[in-house]
């Protein structure tokens, strides 16, 4: 028989051997005292967890916001648990507090001195009072009453002076606070503010960035990168509210406790780098790149650690998952001037979306979507190429493939006339006029059109090479199709309209550099653009002479699926087709 306490400890540490587990089960079922003991230890266990994870230790750290998340973890964990220096989150600044205190103190001292004086007078009066008989006492009474009244009056005056002083100082502080600079505006890229900004000093209040990126540095040291469209409010030198939009924050150790409120929840930082996005309709998403953050409110809260993402839904429910399972939502560094094609609030890059990004440069060049079901559908192009060749051509396993990992992409497919191969969306939209294509494809859909004959090279249209993130492109060697989910792109941004799709399409001119003119001459690819299954654009482009074309299609708020397709009747070797600078044009919508 194992000792009952021992059994419980073993259970709590998940160390029961099968035999002990059996014993434990029997005890629970048969021994009432054991169950009670188990409950006691369970209660103790849970309370210990609360002590460490939840709020109790916080009480000793006055000044720190009391949530259920507990003490901010220290960077190196081997240190002591003893309370650290107090962290002041809220203004007023200590200087002002000191001013009030010292003023109140002098007033109080004055008051006490007065009182002492009055007491002395009183004492002088008292000595004769004790010896004098009743008659004298009665005679002295009016005088005494008068003195007492004077004293009370003095006390009242002194008290009102203190109160008035406090009021004046308090109002003054309020005024000072409203004028106080809480953050400064740093670098920006293509930034367009709703109310144009003249000076870099930022005071409390609400701001809206309509286009581009802006960097703010809070007075306490936190650096915040705002991505348009974004409406936020600066609340103090270490606190802000994000009404809608996306931001990333880099919080140095002296600013631990940096707090962001969203309409759905509150995020408190424990010294980290994290990304936060929120909206009125979509909920709050927090990605933790370094350190820990606490997400939640008084009723429930969770700590998200490095590499985790917290999602807060409309009911306030907080879910945690690994960052590996999330879309790269956040631009973490200010893009260098002129180094990016996409501009938040103005132009979204679809090639970046193909690369697993948010459309603003978080995608990875060279990443590809492979429309064959027997492999993971999202990999690097090199990985696709390494797989064994089948006469240089791959055959798709089956119809439409949804890409759940990338919410902006509904799915991919290899178009063909057969019944199964004409489905182009998860809702079952059909590409009615799909031509015969043999149902084969070569490379998949790649972020960055790169091709290879004797050496790997970037695609070229009308003399322009597309090889860097500033000149993005999607490689779509026929026959492939990709459907973007515009609704889910819209949901990631607040107050933005997708007004237009633009791209430059054609077959890479580098094909002309090939010596085999016969191959070169015969390549012909048809480019298609469909909106909700309707054909909005199609054109066959060849390579003799090299042809390319501009696509420009207006989009309505009700349009959900944008589909890009390339098809060819030929053997699809050397069908180096591509969509260059594929963009969604964005416009502000007045809230």
């Amino acid at each position, binding site marked *: 028989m194992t000792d009952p*306490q*021992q059994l419980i*400890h073993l259970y*709590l*540490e*998940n*160390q029961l051997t099968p035999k002990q*587990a059996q014993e*434990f*089960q029997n005890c*629970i*079922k048969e021994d*009432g*005292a054991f*169950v*009670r*003991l*188990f*409950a*006691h*230890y*369970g*209660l*103790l*266990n*849970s*309370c*210990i*967890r*609360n*002590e*460490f*994870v939840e709020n*109790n230790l916080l009480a000793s750290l006055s000044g720190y916001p009391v949530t259920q998340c*507990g*003490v901010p*973890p220290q960077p190196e*964990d*081997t240190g*002591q*648990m003893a309370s650290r220096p107090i962290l002041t989150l809220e203004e007023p600044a200590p200087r002002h507090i000191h001013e009030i205190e010292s003023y109140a103190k002098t007033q109080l001292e004055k008051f006490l001195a007065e009182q002492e004086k009055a007491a002395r007078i009183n004492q002088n009066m008292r000595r004769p009072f004790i010896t004098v008989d009743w008659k004298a006492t009665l005679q002295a009474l009016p005088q005494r009453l008068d003195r007492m009244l004077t004293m009370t009056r003095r006390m009242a005056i002194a008290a009102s002076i203190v109160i008035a002083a406090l009021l004046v100082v308090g109002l003054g502080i309020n005024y000072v606070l409203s004028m106080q600079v809480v953050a400064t505006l740093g670098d920006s890229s293509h930034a367009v503010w709703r109310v144009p900004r003249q000076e870099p000093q930022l005071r409390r209040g609400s701001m809206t960035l309509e286009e581009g990126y802006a960097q703010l540095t809070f007075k306490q040291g936190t650096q915040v990168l705002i991505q348009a469209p974004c409406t936020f409010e600066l609340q103090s030198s270490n606190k802000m509210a994000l009404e809608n939009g996306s931001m990333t924050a880099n919080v140095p150790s002296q600013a631990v406790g940096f707090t962001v409120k969203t*309409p*759905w*929840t509150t995020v408190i930082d424990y010294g980290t780098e994290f990304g936060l996005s929120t909206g*009125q309709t979509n909920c709050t998403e927090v990605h933790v790149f370094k350190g820990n953050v606490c997400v939640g*409110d*008084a*009723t*429930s809260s*969770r700590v998200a650690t490095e590499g985790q993402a917290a999602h807060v839904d*409309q*009911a*306030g*429910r*907080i*879910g*945690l998952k690994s960052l590996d399972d999330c879309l790269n939502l956040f631009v973490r560094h200010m893009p260098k001037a002129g180094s990016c094609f996409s501009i938040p609030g103005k132009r979204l890059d679809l090639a970046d979306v193909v690369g697993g990004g948010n459309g603003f440069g978080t995608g990875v060049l060279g990443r590809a979507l492979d429309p064959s079901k027997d492999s993971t559908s999202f990999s690097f192009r090199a990985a696709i190429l390494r797989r064994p060749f089948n006469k240089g051509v791959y055959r798709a396993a089956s119809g439409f493939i949804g890409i759940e990992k990338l919410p902006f992409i509904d799915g991919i497919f290899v178009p063909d006339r057969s019944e199964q191969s004409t489905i182009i969306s998860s809702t079952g939209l059909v590409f009615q006029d799909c031509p015969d294509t043999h149902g084969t494809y070569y490379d998949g859909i790649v972020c960055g059109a790169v091709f290879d004959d004797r050496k790997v090279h970037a695609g070229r249209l009308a003399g322009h090479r597309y090889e860097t993130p500033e000149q993005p492109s999607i490689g779509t060697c026929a026959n492939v199709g990709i459907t973007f989910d515009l609704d889910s792109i819209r949901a990631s941004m607040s107050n933005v309209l997708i007004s237009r799709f633009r791209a430059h399409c054609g077959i890479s001119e580098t094909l002309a550099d090939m010596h085999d003119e016969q191959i070169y001459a015969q390549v012909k690819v048809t480019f298609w653009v469909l909106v909700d299954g309707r054909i909005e654009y199609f054109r066959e482009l060849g390579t003799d002479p090299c042809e390319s074309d501009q696509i420009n299609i207006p989009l309505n708020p009700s349009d959900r699926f944008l589909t890009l397709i390339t098809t060819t009747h030929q053997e699809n070797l050397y069908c180096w087709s591509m969509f260059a600078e594929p963009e969604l044009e964005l416009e502000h919508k007045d809230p």
Partner: protein
Amino acid sequence: MKPKKLKTNTNKRRSITSWIEVQTTVSAYVRSVILNYHDSEDVIQNIAMVFVDKFEHLGSSRDLIPWVLKVARYEVANYFRAQNREKKLFDEKAMQRIEHAYQSIHPEAEGVKAALHECIKKLHDRPRNMLKLRYFKDMGIGDISRHLGISKNAIYVMLCRAREALANCVQRKTNIQWKTS
């Protein structure tokens, strides 16, 4: 749903206050049958949701604890079902017995919590850091052993001793002996 700041009506506030009353016991119950930290927090969160939602329908019957523990048992059962583990440590009957035990010790819960708050301050740094790794960092014995370079057995013994010391201190402070036999 509207954003949170708009929805704090009195009823909700009342339900939240009541939740705080039962939270200690419910969390203890869930955490003692679901050892995985994140899973248990998920389940507790679900229970809190049901609690706040259904609170107003509870009417005048203020027998909160039996009711909320029943809700908890369903949620835990749901969790186990979703986990689909082949062999479960607790069957239906065991779960019921544990639930009853928690019901009967509920009046002690706040006392234990308060006593522990004092007791934990008295712990030496070493065991306290160990508990911190175990509970705050959510590390298992294996993780702690790797982290500190101490054998698993030593870690286990130290954790047990720390918990045992806290158990004794709490029993002294609350003046309630846990062991009945």
